[in-house]
């Protein structure tokens, strides 16, 4: 048990959430982060789906990594990811139909998410199953965290609600408050993401750490 949660393993799990965040630091998976974050609910579901798929594809690839011929490894990885994406997409259709309609093609497009292939190539191909699994969960959660923050800000300012429940009281609207239509557009998501990256880097200022 002690070995399972050693310091290195905890590092593997926690670094992608903050210091090596796939969206904020590596700037991967931006396309889907802009497309699905207009509301909080799809952002959460998308984040969880990516977490599950990254974790299990990392695990599976790591288990069979020694049997994959090097020249066709990308194809093998794609097959594994595609299978997992299909499973997740079917589960969503069965149990959360409304959200899966909102997410539309973006569930299927998880297969092209750079974070997935990046983790498979960079981590799962050369590490054991347990580390790979942790790495997948960490990266997925790092991605999900950014999505949830951006999604919450956009839904709150764009629709005045969170998870579909109205937060801003009617009295505000009567006094002349208006929802910001710009927040529902992907352009504003990019600006918000930029602000998030700005804040994140200001907090973990790499120059300050070196000194």
């Amino acid at each position: 048990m002690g070995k399972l949660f050693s310091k290195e393993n905890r590092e593997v799990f926690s670094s992608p959430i903050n210091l090596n965040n796939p969206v904020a630091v590596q700037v991967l998976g931006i396309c889907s982060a802009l497309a699905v974050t207009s509301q909080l609910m799809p952002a959460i579901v998308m984040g969880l789906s990516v977490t599950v798929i990254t974790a299990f594809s990392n695990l599976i690839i790591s288990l069979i990594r020694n049997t994959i011929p090097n020249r066709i490894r990308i194809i093998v990885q794609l097959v594994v990811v595609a299978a997992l994406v299909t499973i997740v997409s079917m589960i969503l259709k069965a149990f959360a139909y409304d959200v899966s309609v909102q997410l539309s093609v973006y569930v299927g497009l998880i297969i092209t998410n750079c974070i997935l292939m990046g983790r498979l190539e960079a981590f799962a191909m050369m590490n054991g199953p347990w580390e790979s699994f942790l790495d997948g969960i960490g990266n997925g959660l790092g991605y999900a965290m950014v999505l949830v923050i951006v999604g919450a800000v956009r839904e709150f300012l764009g629709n005045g609600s969170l998870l579909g429940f109205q937060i801003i009281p009617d009295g505000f609207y009567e006094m002349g408050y208006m929802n910001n239509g710009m927040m529902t557009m992907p352009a504003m998501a990019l600006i918000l993401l930029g602000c998030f990256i700005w804040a994140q880097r200001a907090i973990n200022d790499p120059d300050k750490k070196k000194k």
Partner: protein
Amino acid sequence: MNALRKYLDKIKPNFEEGGKLHAFRSVFDGFETFLFVPNTTSKCGVNVHDAIDSKRIMSFVVIALIPALLFGMYNIGYQNALAAGKLAETGFWEMFGYGFLAVLPKILVSYIVGLGIEFIVAQWKNEEIHEGYLVTGMLVPLIVPVGCPLWVIAIACAFAVIFAKEIFGGTGMNIFNVALITRAFLFFAYPTVMSGDTCWVATESICGLGYNLPDAFTMATPLGEAATGAAITTSMWDQFVGLIPGSIGETSVIAIGIGAIILLWTGVASWKTMISVFVGGAVMGLIFSNFGPEGNAVAAMPWYQHIILGGFCFGAVFMATDPVTSARTETGKYYYGFLIGAMAVIIRVLNPGYPEGMMLAILLMNVFAPLIDYIVVQNNIDKRAKRAIKK
């Protein structure tokens, strides 16, 4: 004047390093250089200075904006009285006073928010205050409809100053015209107060001036009417003078013309850009009115009406000629202006969702201005290289 100079000199030590008001150094510096041309010269190298510095240039633009501003104030009162049906019994000063009270808060909000951010950033980065907001702050109230609430203007100004200017490095570094980014933000974020038919006429009386209109009062701009296929209700003369509903400063061709003369006479704006915007709009208008799509009321408008209506003149005179965001090569200015004019008419005619295309056309060409400059410069290099090889 001397007394002011003496007073400034007296309080100056307070703001220098170690003084008790050092935190407001940038504010003091900004006001001092605005009131008096600084008498310091650069200490190293050989420099060629223009006779007037950029704060003085900005002041000329603000002066050029004043006719449009004053006419806009009058027009607000006029539209309000016209809508109430009491035009005959309302005096000139009553209408003007009403408009003045309607516009003044917008000007104040725009300057306080924008300059506030500029001051904070200048203090924080330990730099001088940039003068760019002097013009932007005056442009912003002129390009919004009178029905636009103040808090919305405040948010839009803050957004534009931070995201269109400061993150690019401040005045002179921005890719986009800051005032137009303010308008674009308003246009996309709060479409109900920026377009449609409820925001163009002031509907409440202020301090006893003006008239209360029913809540459901609607009045579209001539371009808005044309875009929905309705007949334009105002006469051509009114459209030319500017007695039509529209954004505060954009309606009167005459007032904008006076501003254009001031800008051209002082040499602040480029006549090349200005003329070519009008040529571009006219050519595109001619093409559409002769070969345009059938049954499109905007396409059927004669070319001169395209130029008179909406923000075309205002954009051509005050926005397209912005020296920071327009093309900088002399030949490039022709292409830049022509494409703005043509693009504005294309957007008006072909996209019924946007009755006014000037804002989007200028922002679009802002993006392409560096490319135009690059092509012009490369062309020149190629031409001269060929000439050299032939010999």
